């Protein structure tokens, strides 16, 4: 059973298409990561799935029922909730905030306080219950907002950039709490992130958005370029670099270099690969049995290599490495 079924969904703002999604199905209990750069349409999608905004066209079904009227949206908002990128906590206490949605559902004050306290405890925030919301840090506000959403026991929880700060421990604690919640009861989670590490680590499904549309590739190594045209083999400027690509197209386009098409080496390769870039390793992350290595070569490139290769090359953050990829490996769309 799918929690969400989306068909021909469009959202326009002042004549500009912010989102155009032909189809999307999110199964019950899924952990779907919506990834993409800023402005890709992630927040727009989440607000539509939260039934806070009305789509310009298309329909969303929740648990198989079409939600296509104001009253249906109002009813659906009782079952789905959204934690925004910069959550807002109402004036007053943390407990008052976490109990808010329960009170809106007609739950008695004493029971609402009890359930709110339990939700806070699940996010290890019990001691925050009596605090004034204006005395909280940004990270604490985010956690309280998640507790406030979980207190409602929604069928689907939507999280827009749930951890925007650099606090890795907070990332971990939050996703652990969400996993524990999913183990406790059926819960579908959709979260938007511009950090692919989060998506790969925590999601079991991935939706990549690019300029409001589902993208066939993940938004790594995506570059907006202006193709000179003229010949199938073209040299395009990407930041300070010149890359060779094979395409008949001309004019504005997006290049995608799949991370698994990039070969990393400690010395420049003499091979058939037309593009060889020298750079410095800036980030390394585990990705299952593989390693995701981010190289700063004037532009940031993510390469996916096996752990064995990574160890054999002795790469660390700061090492110099060469990225090689064939011009035909560069996708143009």
């Amino acid at each position, binding site marked *: 059973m799918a929690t969400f079924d989306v068909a021909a969904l469009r959202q326009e703002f002042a004549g500009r298409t912010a989102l155009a999604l032909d189809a999307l199905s999110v199964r019950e209990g899924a952990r779907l990561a919506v990834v993409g750069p800023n402005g890709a349409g992630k927040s727009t999608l989440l607000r539509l799935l939260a039934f*806070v905004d009305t789509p310009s066209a298309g329909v969303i079904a929740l648990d198989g029922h079409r939600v296509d009227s104001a009253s249906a949206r109002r009813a659906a908002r009782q079952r789905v909730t959204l934690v925004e990128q910069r959550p*807002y906590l*109402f004036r007053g206490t943390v407990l008052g905030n976490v109990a808010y949605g329960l009170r809106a559902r007609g739950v008695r004050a004493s029971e609402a306080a009890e359930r709110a306290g339990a939700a806070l405890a699940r996010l290890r925030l019990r001691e925050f219950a009596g605090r004034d919301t204006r005395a909280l840090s940004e990270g604490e506000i985010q956690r309280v907002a998640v507790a406030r959403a979980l207190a409602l026991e929604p069928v689907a929880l939507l999280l827009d950039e749930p951890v925007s700060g650099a606090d890795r421990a907070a990332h971990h604690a939050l996703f652990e709490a969400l996993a524990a919640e999913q183990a406790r009861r059926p819960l579908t989670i959709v979260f938007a992130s511009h950090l692919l590490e989060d998506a790969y680590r925590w999601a079991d499904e991935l939706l990549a958005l690019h300029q409001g549309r589902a993208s066939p590739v993940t938004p790594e190594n995506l570059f907006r370029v202006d193709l000179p045209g003229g010949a199938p083999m073209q040299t395009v400027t990407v930041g300070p670099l010149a890359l060779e690509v094979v395409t008949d197209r001309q004019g504005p386009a997006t290049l995608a270099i799949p991370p698994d098409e990039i070969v990393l080496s400690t010395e420049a390769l003499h091979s058939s690969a037309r593009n060889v870039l020298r750079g410095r390793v800036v980030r390394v992350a585990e990705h299952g049995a593989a390693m995701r290595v981010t190289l700063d070569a004037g532009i940031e490139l993510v390469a996916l290599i096996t752990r064995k290769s990574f160890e054999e090359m002795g790469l660390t953050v700061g090492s110099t490495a060469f990225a090689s990829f064939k011009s035909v490996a560069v996708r143009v769309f």
Partner: protein
Amino acid sequence: MSTPGGEVVGIALLSLKIALAATVLACLLGIPLGFFLGWTRFAGRRVLLALLNTALALPTVVIGLLIYLLLARRGPLGALGMLYTWQAIVVAEVVLALPIATALSAAAIQAVDPRVRRTALTLGAGTLRTAWTVAREARFTLLAGVVVAFGRVLSEVGAALMVGGNVRHETRTLTTAITLATSQGEFGLAVALGLVLLALALTVSVVIQLLQGHGDV
């Protein structure tokens, strides 16, 4: 003119009574109206807001004249016999304070973070609870507007003089008493009454400060 202390107290109390009554009535009408203007989007809303802002600068003597003509014996509401009563001053002050209460409430609601409404909706609140939540978040700014309206009617003199008539023991307020004392050369009394008015105005200002300090508005 010799005014014993008891009379000054009487004048001060009457001034307070009129100011409080006018503020309460103006806010009962103005806050919901301001909420509506700040909350909803409809054609002509900007024009209404512009008119409202113009009404803020309406000269009090014009309001006084308007109410005088309405309440005068031969006026449309002459049968009520309200002219030269403290209630007539209240009516004029309500007309004066209404644009203030409305405009400041509209501004307070418009200034509320748009996330408040969305957050209430995502948490499953209905329209009424969402509106109530927005008003609650704006409560300190709304209260500041109430206090500004109160200060305005307390210090008003033109309309009070025209429709109240400055009748001793009946419609003489602090401001009209000061006007009279000054015109009669009783500067000592005028200054004393002025100090009472200043003390009241200072109290109003302190209340605003306290509200702002408490609410970070």
